[in-house]
């Protein structure tokens, strides 16, 4: 399953998503684009720390940042998030599919036992 994915991008995406502050930033950006100052407001951390989180999110392709030198508003980018979600869905699909077949198999062998 794994070999079909672009693993480098996924690695970066999952690492970016693993941090709760970064997830909170993404949640905020889901409501619309925002500047570093606006994003820093709800968190008890420095502007620099928020900037660092934004860099990680940007490199992971989860957000894009404006080029206007002063404010550089950030906005959500759906593609990387989708890829990560797709990988997890693939993993889940493997097991859900396997358990479907296990269910069937157990039904078959129990029927066989009763016939013996």
């Amino acid at each position, binding site marked *: 399953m794994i*070999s079909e994915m672009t693993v480098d991008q996924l690695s970066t995406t999952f690492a970016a*998503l693993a941090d709760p502050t970064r997830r909170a930033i993404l949640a905020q950006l889901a409501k619309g684009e925002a500047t570093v100052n606006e994003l820093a407001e709800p968190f008890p951390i420095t502007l620099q720390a928020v900037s660092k989180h934004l860099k990680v999110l940007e490199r992971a392709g989860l957000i894009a940042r404006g080029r206007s030198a002063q404010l550089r508003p950030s906005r959500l980018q759906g593609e990387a998030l989708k890829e990560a979600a797709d990988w997890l869905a693939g993993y889940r699909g493997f097991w859900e599919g396997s358990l479907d*077949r296990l269910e069937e198999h157990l039904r078959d062998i129990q029927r066989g036992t009763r016939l013996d």
Partner: protein
Amino acid sequence: MTEPIRAQEITISRVLDAPRELVWKAWTEPEQLARWWGPAGWTNPLEAITMEVRPGGTFRVTSISDADGSQMTTRGVYRDVVEPERLVFDEPAEDAWHEGAVSVAEFTALGDGRTEIVLHTTIRTTDEMLGPAEAGMAGSLDRLAEHLNS
């Protein structure tokens, strides 16, 4: 800041209409595993399955796609084997993006002839796996901070 970060976690559960001992055998005997491993559309030739069901033992299953004959191999190491209730197994990192996955399969007898399986998989990653890119960022961040403060 290169603290280990929590990995992705996936939990899948299922209630099966079979007693626990039977479910355990289906997970631990190659002849049975061959019948259900992998989603629909994949066949598991018995000769391509090896399983040493004991702590430290390895497993390897090669599945073949019915559609195009392509192969998918799953391999790992059993970490904990408690018949008939618990199997813990590691899957190694196949590629760079994670450090491997560890799965815990718990089999619970529901008391009415049915068995609940809960499969909990943790996929490990660390900030360090971001590598040099992270370190190379420090300089530009300082400049950004300066700029924001000016």
